[in-house]
């Protein structure tokens, strides 16, 4: 049914464009979260070495 509805080409392009923009946004947020997580670990390590000195 959905496949049958994909007929209006203007709508199709708009829908794909929106989907790509949202996809990139989510991906970007995902990368940011991973970066924050990695930096947190580095800070914990740095704090530990500072404590042991």
């Amino acid at each position, binding site marked *: *049914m959905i496949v049958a509805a994909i007929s209006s080409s203007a709508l199709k392009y708009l*829908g794909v464009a929106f989907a790509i923009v949202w996809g990139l*946004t989510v991906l970007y*947020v995902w990368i940011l*979260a991973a970066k*924050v997580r990695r930096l947190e670990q580095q800070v914990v390590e740095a704090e530990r070495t*500072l404590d042991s000195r």
Partner: protein
Amino acid sequence: MTMTSDRLIRVLCPVAGVLLAVAMVLIFFWVPTDADQGISQRIFYLHVPVAICSYLFLGVGAVYAVRYLRGRDPLDDMRSYVGVHAGVTWGTLVMLTGPIWAKKSWGVWWRWDDQQLNTFLIIFLFYCAYFMLRFSLDAGPRRAALSAAYAIFGIAMVPLSIVAVHLSQSLLHPQLFDNGSSAMEGSMWLTFLVSLAGVLSLAIVLYLVELRGKLLAQRIDRLVRRSRGEELLGPA
């Protein structure tokens, strides 16, 4: 806190991706075109969830502002700030998508007799000023207390603006449009709810990531100062 926030981000981020993808399919290929407004009505499925997110995070900002003033926990101050920041950021999207919809369905970019538009504008302006206050104060308990007080005032602005905007139009002008919600079909509701869930989970992830980023910056700052201090003390 970090553990649960980390797990929440890991779960909600893919969920947001999937939900938004499904929402796009539903919005553009599945849901029937609105009989009154035509194709432009489809922006409703994005505009309204974004507006709900904006109000929601401004509310989060105010709730944590109250909590800060009660408990003086710097973490609450940070949560309140990130909440307001998220609210204003989503609000900017509302201000961008609102006029587009207005132009397509009413033929004008702005309607001074539309309640939602004008209430939102007042609250948006109020909370934009929050940053002016916050960034002209030095970090510390004073900045936290003053920002919290201002954020709490903002919540009072919501009912006040709604009443005042309502009065400014309803007595003389008839309400022309009833934003369509009265005649929403099941398929429209489903599409709207999926889109709302997607935007909401993305918004929550963004909030958590920003909060953790801000806390991280604080920790790094403390670490740098500590290491400098110990280096100075070291040789002595």
